[in-house]
């Protein structure tokens, strides 16, 4: 069985018709935007998932030509070479990426697998050890799999299989994630959930799979599951600021505004330059009659984006309600300077003039 057939069998594309349709869609997008490295990488991944390795290679290479520092494309191309046993080419890619990202354990891990496959056990052990040093995740993972015991790397036939599975899972998970996202974009949220769940199962430490799953659950209206997935994503990557914003919106949909406020505050703290989050935080404060804090956030939003008319409307109404007519008029006039035909604001201004 050749490597293309092996890949095809392993991935067992669940919906062949849909898969072909998605390929055609991405191909069309590439025709429109041939210079998008993301699309080239995505197309390569889809082709690789379908076992079309030669074509996939060309698209990964194109992605890297367009963006030579594209980590994911390098990773996919490297693994394609591993799959096709083109060890030297794979090694060249992984070594380059290790130099570029010395703290990225996954490329060390990839090198470890490569050396293991080619019988270079000493070098394999050294790379695995380095992967453990740069990222604690690998220590726990290798320990669970029996590769790391008593402060030493243990390599035998069994652990060789385990390590190989990790890199296959990495690729398969990325593939499922892309398929899931594509299905979600096309409104096929039930199938999207299946794919994204598979991605998260294959690589449970990848925050973005949980974040995407949370987004699709929220879209479906399955809010408790959406919350659980966003929380998982945040546990893996606490710096995922938009995760808090997404959580806040879900709590909002459930009318749980106390939790929504807590999360939105964190989202703003982590994304202080995102005017829209400040706007939403202002709404939460205003709902709780914390008007000074609401005004503060709206002013901040306007400092970030002076053309943010909705923030200005809220600020004007807030001043109006507090009897601060002069300030309210000032905000309404500013809005009318930008949109002079806004009858609603004109009426508001006339009422307090």
């Amino acid at each position: 069985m050749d490597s293309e057939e092996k890949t095809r069998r392993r991935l067992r594309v669940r919906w062949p018709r849909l898969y072909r349709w998605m390929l055609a869609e991405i191909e069309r997008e590439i025709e429109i935007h041939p210079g998008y490295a993301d699309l080239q990488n995505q197309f390569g991944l889809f082709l690789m998932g379908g076992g079309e390795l030669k074509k996939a290679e060309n698209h990964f290479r194109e992605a890297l030509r367009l963006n030579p520092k594209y980590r994911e494309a390098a990773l996919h191309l490297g693994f394609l070479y591993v799959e096709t046993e083109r060890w030297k080419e794979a090694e060249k890619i992984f070594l380059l990426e290790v130099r570029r990202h010395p703290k990225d354990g996954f490329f060390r891990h990839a090198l470890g697998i490569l050396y293991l496959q080619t019988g270079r056990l000493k070098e394999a052990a050294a790379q695995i050890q380095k992967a453990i040093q740069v990222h604690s995740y690998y220590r726990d993972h290798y320990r669970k799999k029996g590769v790391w015991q008593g402060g030493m790397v243990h390599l035998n036939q069994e652990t060789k299989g385990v390590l190989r599975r990790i890199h296959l899972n990495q690729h398969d998970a990325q593939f499922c994630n892309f398929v899931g996202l594509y299905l979600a974009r096309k409104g096929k949220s039930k199938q999207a959930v299946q794919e994204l769940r598979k991605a998260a199962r294959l690589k449970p430490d990848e925050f973005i799979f949980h974040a995407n799953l949370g987004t699709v659950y929220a879209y479906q209206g399955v809010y408790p599951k959406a919350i659980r997935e966003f929380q998982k994503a945040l546990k893996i990557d606490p710096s995922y600021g938009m995760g808090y914003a997404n959580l806040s919106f879900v709590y909002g949909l459930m009318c749980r505004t106390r939790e929504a406020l807590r999360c939105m505050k964190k989202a703003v703290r982590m994304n202080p330059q995102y005017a829209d989050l400040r706007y939403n935080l202002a709404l939460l404060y205003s709902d709780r009659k914390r008007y000074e804090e609401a005004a503060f956030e709206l002013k901040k939003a306007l400092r970030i984006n002076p053309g943010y008319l909705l923030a200005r409307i809220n600020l004007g109404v807030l001043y109006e309600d507090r009897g601060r007519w002069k300030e309210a008029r000032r905000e309404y006039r500013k809005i009318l300077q930008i949109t002079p035909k806004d009858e609603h604001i004109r009426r508001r201004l006339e009422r307090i003039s």
Partner: protein
Amino acid sequence: MLKEDFVIQSNVRQILIRSNIDYSRITFGTVKGVVYLRGIFKSAFHHTDGSIESAADFTIKSLQSLEKKIKGIPGVIDIEFELTNWTKAGGQWIPKKKQEDG
């Protein structure tokens, strides 16, 4: 009971995400139960035969549907549309001239 603005805002957001509207061109906000929608109204896709008339019909139906859904959110008092390419006059949606059509 008056619903909180943030709850309304989250619901409007959800409606836009679930709709066939290109919501990246629309900004929206909520002030004391009044929902504001501004920007360019454009469908993300058309279920039409490709003619200008049927595309406009489809957009009008999308606008009516959006309006109905937002009005259905508990606590929403009114909707203020300030779209650059569509306007409502005498209860009818009409495209604005010399603007990007929907």
